[in-house]
């Protein structure tokens, strides 16, 4: 096939080509290197106590024997994963291993599809009250999907099979439905994600605002359609059309609806779990584990070392401080970025990926890919801010992290401080990216308000 034909196939069906290539890559890797999935499953950077595939097998074994899977104190994952995985052949066999890889590949493809749809919806560029002056610079949906699918972190996490991949898939699903204005589906998806991992709960305000924004846009479109005013013309003109406030849903009622849907969905999931299991023991085991951090196995996050060193008397206080620190960003992001709710959601995902108690690179991979949804503002951060040092620090952390972990645990020629230092560098790199993007998003918004300031430098007065 000549190159031009191949290129044209890609241009005609970019999503199908990307998904097909990504699935082939994952399955080929598993087939060519049969030891790779088992090796990655054991890596601390991928598997943490709350998402490890190995621990899932332990829970599955107890579940299939008719025992309470949470009795052993090893398994801390959501109960509804158990019936799903008990349908698959045992992962100890070659076939079972391959089946699980196929399942996780399918999850990755679902996530990729969601990211594609989010990018296509343009929710990052246009909201009810805001239109980015850089909307012509937005990255194409296919590129963002490709970045997600061929991101080494995503591929490694897919082969390592942590159950947080389910959380990312449902978070992406929720975001994509929120961008379509499907409030109920979006809320239900984020409820499932919270049910699996607890921390997506912090995304609920941002997703609620995103839903509200999209619903309002749709309502106003419907009223305007009689005036032959299309969405695109409004966007291009950048003119604010007077919208009849009475036709729009009231924010308070909308928030109450979303909260009620979320609570209901969560209650149904928990009751369903209870029906599967002999006791309520799963609630403390699944949800108190990230809250109280009983297992201090090292991970790429910042919690484990801190709580190894902390005095026992202050342990519960600082657990509270760490959680409140994460929680404290959720509402301010929504307040400040209320006009760009998708940016608020993406930045909150970044806060979670860096500060969550059992951090892993799967979440970081997903976040870095989602960050590309805000690709149109990258020129601001790459010119004025520290993108290069941040990316260098992340690369440095990626390469030295496993090396220092090996030195500490296996070679014995390093100690815990080696690995902890590298996780700090890693977190610092991610945080610089996060703050730079926040800067760019705000600057973009400012330039929208004051077009005359575009391209000028900041000066402190």
């Amino acid at each position: 096939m000549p190159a031009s034909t191949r290129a044209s196939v890609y241009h005609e069906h970019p999503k199908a080509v990307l998904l097909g290539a990504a699935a082939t890559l994952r399955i080929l890797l598993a087939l060519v290197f049969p030891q790779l999935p088992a090796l990655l499953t054991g890596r601390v950077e991928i598997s943490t106590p709350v998402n490890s595939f190995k621990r899932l097998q332990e829970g599955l074994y107890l579940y299939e024997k008719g025992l309470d899977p949470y009795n052993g104190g090893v398994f801390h994952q959501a109960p509804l994963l158990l019936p799903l995985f008990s349908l698959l052949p045992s992962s100890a066999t070659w076939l079972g291993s391959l089946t699980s890889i196929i399942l996780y590949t399918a999850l990755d493809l679902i996530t990729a599809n969601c990211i594609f749809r989010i990018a296509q919806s343009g929710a990052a560029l246009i909201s009810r009250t805001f239109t980015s002056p850089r909307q012509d610079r937005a990255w194409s949906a296919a590129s963002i999907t490709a970045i997600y699918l061929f991101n080494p972190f995503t591929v490694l996490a897919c082969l390592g099979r942590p159950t947080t991949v389910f959380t990312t898939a449902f978070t992406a699903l929720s975001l994509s439905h929120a961008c379509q204005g499907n409030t109920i589906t979006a809320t239900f998806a984020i409820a499932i994600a919270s049910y699996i991992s607890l921390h997506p709960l912090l995304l609920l305000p941002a997703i609620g605002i995103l839903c509200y924004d999209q619903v309002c846009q749709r309502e106003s479109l419907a009223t305007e359609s009689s005036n032959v005013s299309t969405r695109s013309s409004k966007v291009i003109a950048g003119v604010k059309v007077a919208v009849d406030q009475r036709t729009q849903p009231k924010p308070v009622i909308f928030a109450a609806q979303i909260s009620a849907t979320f609570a209901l969905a969560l209650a149904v999931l928990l009751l369903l779990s209870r029906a599967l299991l002999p006791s309520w023991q799963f609630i403390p085991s699944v949800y108190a584990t990230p809250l109280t951090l009983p297992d201090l196995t090292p991970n790429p996050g910042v919690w484990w070392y801190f709580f190894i060193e902390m005095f026992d008397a202050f342990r519960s206080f600082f657990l509270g401080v760490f959680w409140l620190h994460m929680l404290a960003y959720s509402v301010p992001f929504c307040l400040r970025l209320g006009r760009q709710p998708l940016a608020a959601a993406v930045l909150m995902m970044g806060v979670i990926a860096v500060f969550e108690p059992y951090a892993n690179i799967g979440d970081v991979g997903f976040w870095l890919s989602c960050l590309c949804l805000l690709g149109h503002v990258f020129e601001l951060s790459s010119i004025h801010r520290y993108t290069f040092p941040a990316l260098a620090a992340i690369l440095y952390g990626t390469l030295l992290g496993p090396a220092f972990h090996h030195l500490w645990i296996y070679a014995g020629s390093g100690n815990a401080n080696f690995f902890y230092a590298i996780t700090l560098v890693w977190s610092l790199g991610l945080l610089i990216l996060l703050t730079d993007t926040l800067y760019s998003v705000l600057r973009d918004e400012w330039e929208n308000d004051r077009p005359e300031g575009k391209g000028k430098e900041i000066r402190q007065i």
Partner: protein
Amino acid sequence: MMMRGDKTQADVSSSDGQSSITAMAPPPEQPATSNTRRLIILSFWLVVACLGLPHWIWTTSIHRSDLPLESMNDWAEGKSCQPHYPLNIRLHSQSHDSARDAIVAARTETILNSLTDFQLYRFHVAAGNNTVSDVPTQDDVLVVELKQPSKADHVEAKLQSWVPVLDIVHADDDVERLAEFISEQVRSVFADEAKSLSYILGNTPFATGKEAIISPEDRKILEARTTRAFKYASALHLTFSLFTSSATPSAWDIEEALEQYITPLLGPFSAITKFTVDTQVQLQASFSPSIEGPTFDAATGQWKLDNSDLGGFINAAEWPLSPSIGSGPTINFVLYVPSAQQSPLVIAETGGSSWLIPQWGGVQILNSQHLSGRLSAEDLRPIMLTFADQLTSLLGFPQSPPSLSLRISSLTRERATSLIMSASSTLGALSRLTLKLKSIAIPDTVAKSVDETINRLNQACQDLNQGRFSRALQNARIAEDEAEQAFFEPSMVGQVYFPDEHRVAVYVPLLGPMAVPLVMAGAKELIAWVKYLKSPKTKTA
């Protein structure tokens, strides 16, 4: 020229919780923007005030259970218990004259109670019915068996080894002289114990002034006894080890030997302490490298060990003598067989071949010219007898009286007394600790243990004063365990070394950087608000 970027600067930093005041006049801020900024600062402060503050109070407040400090101090100062020891003695006689027996008993009691160095005791001597069997009842500490002599003027007093019975052969018709003789014999039985009890009680808060005066020589003996003996434990482990420097002997009939010579000793004592026993054989055992080794003395043809080498004789690095098996401490008994080239091996100063290591165990060297591959029970007889003797010393047995049963009952009283005192002083220490460290947490378990300790101490003291000595020991033992548990509560031990200044070091590094932007932003907004409040007033005025 336009002041560009000023607003962006303010916005970016406001989302971090900071805001900057601009000196030169920037383009006016839109009211919506500043409202958003205030809302953001407020939302951070709401999290701090509504969630952080209650959480801080809840997780770092110190729970101090109420301790009965007054009664703890009373125990520590010895106000709550004045131990004395009622001893019941029964007088059996073969005569049928019970009235005369009663007089002898009453007279003996008077004499015994008037003895100056026996003020801690209160004797009750009762004349028993001679139809009662020789087995003493539980209450009787001693049974005096009066026997008619086979020939006139034959006077004899003898203690039975296994039961607390004193056989007295005396034919005196005079009641007074008979009573004096009996009380003299009883006195000699309890003399050592009285000294020992006085030694334990003397110079402590529990001293009542009734203690006997102890001569310096006696004090030395008693001190040596306490240094040697193991601290009281409710379970003890005995390890018997055979170390051979060559390949023979490689086996010993230890089970049979233990059965014959050690078990009879442990039997009666197991009422106080539980014993477990194990044995081991080690061949090719070499000397400890830390000692110089024996030197050959050509004059006597013996290998001699210096006195200074005895302490280091045990090769702790290579001989598998574990410090503790199970819950209680381990008493080690080591039998060492030197090689034929280094035989006979003796201690240089005394020429003996066995010694005792205080609070550790006993060591013996077996020098024998004709050793087979297996040591028979008969070969082990003298060795086991020495070990048995060492065991009694290590357990803290008094050296007299010769009756084992009486020695055990003496030891029961001594141990009960010392446990009561030790538990009381632990209570005192705990009370001082809680008063001194105001910020130390006192968990409920500690309060519970203290209550239990005081309760058990009361019972033990009562039992002691009413003559139920083994129950007193049991209660005292539980009191001691509970008191130790309360004092060494793990959550308290850590805080003893945690002064208040350390709190600063805990809070500042993390909370400081977080607090600075929050406080600064909050303060700026407050100042702006106050100014805004004042300005319309000035305008209206």
